[in-house]
């Protein structure tokens, strides 16, 4: 039971669901299996905690990171790199796209519709039931509708990311798994995997899950850590 | 037909600081009469501007706020949004509303805020000593246009009623004056209509009142009325410019 992705994979979700952390870790994980991996930061709405902050760490691992030009990296501007449409038109290996939060962040995807045409695309909704607006199944489904409406693309699967950062316990992981299972049943969307922080792994009985576990190493850290 | 006449209840006993012949006093009285007639004194909040009417809160007998220059429409928005049951009006002059507060009045009108603005246009900054206003007439001399307003340099006088009427949001925008009894009767009707729209929760309403400033114009009160009639009214034409129905 392992995660095996290829082609174009888009990561979406509500604000703070952990999309970027999940996307980065997916990139690292898939790279470790020997695939060619590229990741594009399409978060045009949130100026903090973006993929661009871990560019060097990813590049060292042989992952191709597509970002706006260097001089605009800290700008408060919605700059979409022209490289993005190129990488979508000619995908090879795994092409990961880290979209911004909510429908607002997913809107940019609609502008790339020409590039997405005739391509098979997988789009995963990251869900953390400990976040506002996604505490209920209805909340998650509402966000799914909003994102699909804004991006003009269909969500094809779910990634569970139940956590309270440093205060996450095994209980939270089990509860979160139960929640995304229910969401999967209700929505008919398959569960790709659930994310579990690396330091919690030995406290978790992964046999309780019928989906793969993505081991999450926190890369977007705070300055005092 | 003989009739009685007395000070409205909504007007206080205080003597105003306005100069002899200044029509602010007439406009104050009309607002007070309308508030009395609508029976809303106990739930009215007025907002005084920066300008000659800065002390307006002394002349009425209901709650009042005093605003910073031009910001009265933002304050009125604040009140009306949290207490829609209150009857709110701003009382603003031409410098206050058409210059420093242009942004506030346009956006309040465009949002369709349900308050009423009484806009007193006397084509000059009264309070600060007769300087040029956005509504000063071409060639009109003021203390900052000593050679007369040069429209090539500072543009034409702003017609606020028409400018606000260009907004697509429904509203009641009218221009009146109070220089003669017949005008006063119409002005009062317009003010009452404006407050009635507010009471009905219908729309933003603004009554521009073309007014006089004998002292800063350098005229007797009667000459000021004549000058208003001959010079201001042909440019600032009277009547409803916009009604919520059209």
């Amino acid at each position, binding site marked *: 039971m392992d995660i095996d992705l290829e082609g174009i994979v888009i990561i979406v979700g509500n604000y703070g669901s952990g999309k970027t952390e999940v996307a980065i870790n997916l990139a690292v994980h898939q790279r470790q299996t020997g695939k060619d991996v590229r990741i594009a930061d399409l978060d045009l709405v949130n100026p903090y905690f973006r993929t661009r902050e871990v560019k060097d760490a990813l590049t060292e691992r042989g992952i191709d990171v597509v970002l706006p030009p260097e001089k605009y990296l800290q700008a408060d501007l919605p700059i979409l790199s022209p490289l993005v449409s190129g990488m979508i038109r000619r995908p090879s290996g795994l092409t990961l796209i880290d979209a911004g939060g909510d429908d607002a962040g997913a809107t940019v995807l609609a502008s790339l519709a020409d590039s997405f045409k005739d391509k098979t695309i997988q789009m995963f909704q990251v869900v953390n039931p400990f976040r506002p607006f996604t505490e209920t199944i209805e909340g998650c489904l509402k966000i799914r509708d909003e994102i699909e409406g804004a991006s003009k693309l269909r969500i094809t699967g779910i990634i569970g990311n139940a956590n309270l950062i440093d205060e996450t316990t095994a209980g939270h992981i089990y509860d979160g798994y139960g929640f995304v299972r229910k969401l999967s049943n209700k929505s008919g969307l398959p569960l790709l995997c659930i994310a579990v922080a690396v330091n919690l792994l030995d406290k978790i009985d992964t046999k309780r899950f019928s989906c793969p576990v993505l081991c999450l190493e926190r890369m977007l850290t705070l300055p005092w850590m | 037909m*003989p*009739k009685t006449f*007395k000070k409205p209840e909504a007007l206080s006993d205080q*003597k*105003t600081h*306005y100069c*002899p*012949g200044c029509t602010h006093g007439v406009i104050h009285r009309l607002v007070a009469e309308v508030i009395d007639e609508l029976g809303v004194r106990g739930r009215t909040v007025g907002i005084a501007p920066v300008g000659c009417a800065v002390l307006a809160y002394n002349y009425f007998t209901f709650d009042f706020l005093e605003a910073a220059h031009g910001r009265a429409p933002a304050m009125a928005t604040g009140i009306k949004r949290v207490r829609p049951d209150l009857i709110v009006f701003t009382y603003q002059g031409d410098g206050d509303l058409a210059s420093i507060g242009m942004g506030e009045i346009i956006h309040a009108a465009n949002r369709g805020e349900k308050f009423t603005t009484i806009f007193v246009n006397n084509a000059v900054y009264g309070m600060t000593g007769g300087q040029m206003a956005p509504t000063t007439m071409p060639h009109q001399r003021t203390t900052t246009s000593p050679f007369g307003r040069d429209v090539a340099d500072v543009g034409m006088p702003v017609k606020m009623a028409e400018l606000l009427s260009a907004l697509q949001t429904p509203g009641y925008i009218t221009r009146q004056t109070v220089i003669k009894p017949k005008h006063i009767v119409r002005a009062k009707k317009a003010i009452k209509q404006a407050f009635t729209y507010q009471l009905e929760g219908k729309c933003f309403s603004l009554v521009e009142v073309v007014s006089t400033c004998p002292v800063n114009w350098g005229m007797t009160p009667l000459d000021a*009325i004549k000058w208003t009639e001959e010079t201001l009214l042909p440019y600032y034409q009277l009547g409803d410019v916009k009604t919520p129905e059209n």
Partner: protein
Amino acid sequence: MSYHMSIDVERCKGCGLCIAVCPQHVLELSEEVNPLGYFPVFQARPDDCNHCALCCMMCPDVAITITEVVDDTSAQA
């Protein structure tokens, strides 16, 4: 029923707007200064007043009022 017009001398600023609108030419400016320093208006020809109230309407200082006087003669009539 009759009407009584009164001018509050202390409120009047002597602007003369009422004089100009009075159709009966009842009003004139006084020669005496009021406490505010103005020469207030007074009814020079009170008998000509028909209580049309145009002066009241024009006065920016609410200095003129007209009240109803209930007297015996009008009650009998």
